[in-house]
C-alpha cells in the first residue's frame, strides 16, 4: 500500500544517549530477566566472575556479529560467515607454522584472507547485483572447498600463535583481553556508524538505495567495503577462536552464523536494513551468550537447549521484531 508511512519509526543512528529505543530496552530487560531466573537456580549467576566469563565467551560472537550488522544494515545478508571464521582461524594458524615472521603476521594474514573473501562477496553484490544470499552462499562453498582441499579434510595440525592465544585467552588487570578486543571493535563500529560519512551511507543505502545513489553516494563502493569488513571481522573472530582453543578446527564457524544473525536482529536491527544501532547488537550478543550458558549450566540436554533457544528467539521476535513493511 502506498499510504504515507506516518508511523515509521524514528530511530536511525546511534544517538542512544538521548534515546534508547524499544528493542534495545527489551533486549536488556530480557538479559536482566535471564540473570534473575538463573540466580534462582544458583547465586553464582550474579557474581562478577561469571558475568565477566560470559562477556569473554560472548566476545567472539560479538566481533563476528559486528560485521554481520554492517551487512544487515545494508539490507543484505552474509551467509559466508561460517567459512570466513574457519578461514581466518586456519590461515592464521598456518602462517604461525612459518617461523617467527609467520608468527608476527599470523593475525593480519588471517584477517586479510577474510577481507578478500568479503571483497568477492561485495563485488558480487555491489557490482554484479547478485542477491547477497546467493553469492555469499557460493563464496562460502568455495572457501569451504579451498579449506577442505588444503587441510585434506582433517583437523589442521598447525596451532595458534602466542599472540593469538594472548589476545583470546589472556587478561589485563583481570579483564579478559577478548572483552577488550570486543570493546575496541565495538567502539570503532559505533564511531563508524555514527560519525562518519561511510556510516551514514550505510544507513542511507539500507533505507533506499536509489535515493542514496541519487544523492551522490558511491553506493557500490560502500556496499563492497561493508562486505569486506564483514568478512574481515568474521575472520578476526576465527583468529580469536583459534587462539582460545589453541588451534583451528574444521567447521568451527558453523556454530556462529545463526547466532550472529539472531544477535543482530534481537538487538533491534531491521533485517530489511537501514534501522538499528550497535548497542542493540551488544545486547543481542549478551542475550544469546547468556541463554546458551544458562541452558548448559542448568544441564539441560542439547535437544532441550536447541528447542528453548529457538522458542525464546521466536517469542522475542514476536514481542518486537515485527516488520512494518513487506518486501
Amino acid at each position, binding site marked *: *500500500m*502506498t*499510504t*504515507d*508511512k*506516518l*508511523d*515509521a*519509526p*524514528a*530511530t*536511525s*543512528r546511534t*544517538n542512544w544517549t*538521548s*534515546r534508547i529505543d524499544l528493542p534495545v530496552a527489551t533486549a536488556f530487560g530480557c538479559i536482566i530477566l535471564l540473570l534473575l531466573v538463573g540466580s534462582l537456580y544458583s547465586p553464582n549467576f550474579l557474581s562478577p566472575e561469571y558475568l565477566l566469563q560470559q562477556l569473554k565467551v560472548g566476545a567472539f560472537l560479538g566481533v563476528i556479529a559486528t560485521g554481520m550488522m554492517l551487512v544487515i544494515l545494508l539490507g543484505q545478508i552474509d551467509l559466508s560467515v561460517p567459512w570466513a571464521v574457519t578461514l581466518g582461524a586456519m590461515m592464521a594458524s598456518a602462517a604461525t607454522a612459518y617461523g617467527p615472521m609467520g608468527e608476527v603476521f599470523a593475525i593480519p594474514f588471517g584477517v586479510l584472507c577474510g577481507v578478500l573473501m568479503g571483497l568477492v562477496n561485495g563485488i558480487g553484490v555491489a557490482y554484479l547485483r547478485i542477491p547477497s544470499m546467493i553469492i555469499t552462499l557460493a563464496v562460502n562453498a568455495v572457501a569451504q572447498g579451498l579449506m577442505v582441499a588444503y587441510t585434506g579434510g582433517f583437523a589442521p595440525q598447525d596451532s595458534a600463535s602466542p599472540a593469538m592465544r594472548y589476545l583470546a585467552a589472556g587478561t589485563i588487570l583481570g579483564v579478559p583481553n577478548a572483552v577488550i578486543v570486543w570493546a575496541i571493535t565495538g567502539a570503532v563500529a559505533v564511531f563508524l556508524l555514527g*560519525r*562518519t*560519512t*561511510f556510516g*551514514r*551511507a550505510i*544507513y*542511507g543505502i539500507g*533505507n*533506499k538505495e*536509489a*535515493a*542514496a*545513489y*541519487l*544523492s*551522490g*553516494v*558511491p553506493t557500490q563502493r560502500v556496499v563492497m567495503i561493508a562486505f569486506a569488513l564483514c568478512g574481515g571481522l568474521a575472520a578476526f573472530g576465527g583468529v580469536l577462536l583459534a587462539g582460545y582453543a589453541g588451534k583451528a578446527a574444521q567447521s568451527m564457524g558453523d556454530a556462529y552464523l545463526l547466532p550472529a544473525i539472531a544477535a543482530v536482529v534481537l538487538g533491534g536491527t531491521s533485517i530489511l536494513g*537501514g*534501522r538499528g544501532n550497535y548497542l542493540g547488537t551488544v545486547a543481542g550478543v549478551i542475550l544469546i551468550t547468556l541463554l546458551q550458558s544458562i541452558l548448559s549450566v542448568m544441564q539441560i540436554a542439547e535437544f532441550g537447549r536447541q528447542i528453548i533457544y529457538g522458542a525464546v528467539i521466536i517469542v522475542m521476535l514476536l514481542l518486537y521484531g515485527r516488520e512494518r513493511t513487506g518486501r
Partner: protein
Amino acid sequence: MVDAVPLFRMEGMSKRYGGVQALDKADLIVRSGKVHAILGENGAGKSTLIKIMSGVVAPDEGRMLLDGQEVSFASPAAANVAGIVCIFQELSLIPDLSVADNIVISNPPTWLGMIDRKAQHAIAMEALQRAGGADIHPMELVKNLPLSRRQIVEIAKALARKPRVLILDEATSALTAADVETVFGVLKRLRSEGIALLYISHRMHEIAELADDCTVFRNGRRIATYPAGSKTGDEVVELMIGREYSSVFPPKLDTVHRSATPVLEARDLHWMQRLNGISLTARAGEVVGLGGLDGQGQRELLLALFGVLRGVSGAVLVDGVQRVINGPRTAKAPDIGMALIPEDRKTEGLMLPMSVRDNLSFAAMSQISRGGIIDRRAESAAIDRMIKLLAIKMASPAAAVGSLSGGNQQKVVIAKWLMVGPRIILLNDPTRGIDVGTKQEIYALLRKLAAEGAAIILYSTDYDELIGCCDRVLVLYDGAIKRELVGPDITEHALIASALNIDHKEAVA
C-alpha cells in the same frame, strides 16, 4: 433524470492518517449511467475517498450505501464482489503474470478446481477487445508491456469484473493521445450501458469532454457538486484552491544573465528512442520550464543531464565547457554544481524512516565532513540554516521524515540539495501532491534562487505552474522539443496545443 435511490452514496466519511485529517465528514452521491468527475488538489482527499470506496482502507467514521443498503468492505475483493471496481493510479497489475492471468486474477474460471486456461484466454480476449487493447497478446507477461499498454490491461481487468461502479484514478496519465481517444470511447459506451463512472483527473479538457457531474473536494471535504459545464475554468480552480489563483505565484523579475555563457547547455541528446535529439540552454538567473504531456521524455531528460542514464549520445556543456557527467556524484561536485530534485520523494528523494537531520545532510556530506569524519557542529549549523530558510515544520530535527506532511517532506528534499550549494537545479515535478501553501513557498524560493544566480530547469505536470514560474517553457513531445514559449507567450492555450501536438481546434475541446 434523477432516480429516487442513487446507486451509491456515502455520508459523514472521515479518515485520519497520523496527524493528517485526510477526509473530514465527506459525502458523495453516485448515479448509474453518469460520469462523475472528482476534482481537487492533490491531498484534497480524493484518493482516500476512493480507497475507502474500494475497500483498501477502512474509514474512521461514516457510512456507505449501495442501492440504499448500508455496506462496508473489508478488502478490495469484497468491494469487487459488490460491483465497485477501482483502477488505481499506482498500477495493481502483477508483473510476473501474463496479461490473461492478470485480467482474471480475482476470479479465474475453474474446472475441477484447476484454472481453465482456455476459458481464461477467451475472457481475456473479450475484455481486451472491450478495453481497446485487441493488439495485446493475452499470454504476454505484464512486465514486458510499456506503461500505456499496461494501463489498457488495467482497464480490461476492471471490465472483466463486471463493475457497477467503475472508479478511474488518473487512469489516462500514462496514455498517449491516441490511447486516450480509445479509452474515452470505451468509457462512453460503459456509461450508456448504465455503469456509474467516477473519474478522477487533473486534465480539465478531459473532464469537459467526458463528465456529466463534477464534485470538488478541498481539505478532505466536499466543497461543491455541479453539472459539468456550468462553471468556468477560473471558478473551478477557485473552488479547488479556495482563493484567488493569481496570487499564488511570485512576480517574475527578469534576472536572466543573457549575455553570459549559458551555465548549462545540452546538444542533441539521444537515448533509447525516449530522447530524440534534445538541445537546450539554461542561463544563470533563468527558470526554464519543461512542458508537455506526462511521459514525453521530460523525466529522462533530467536523468540524462544528471548522469543517471547510460548510453546517452550528444554533448553536455557546463559554463561552455564540454563535460562527461557519469553519475550524481560527478554532477554534484562543486565544479559542476548540479542538483536533481527527483520525481518520487518517497523512493528517490528521502529515506522516510531516517531523521530530518540525517536526510538533510545526506547529499552535502562532503561539505560537512573532513576525511570521512562528520563535523557535527558544521552539520547542525548547516541544518539549522536550511530549516529556517525553508521554514520546515517538524517536531524536532531528530523526527523521522516519514512523520512530516507531504509538503514538508518535499521541502526537506529541496533543502537537502540546497545544502550542496548548487548552480544548476533540476526539478522533476516538485509540487506534486503537496498543499497550496507549500507550493507558494516553493515558487517564491525558486524565484529567489534564480535571482541569486542559479539556473533552474523545472518539469511540471501542472500547466499553471509553468505559466506562473517560468521565464521560458520547452514543450516536449515524443522525446523532442516541439515548441519553445517565451515570456507572455506562455499561456495555457499554447501549452495544451503544443503538448498534444495537434492543431488548435482539437486541443480546445
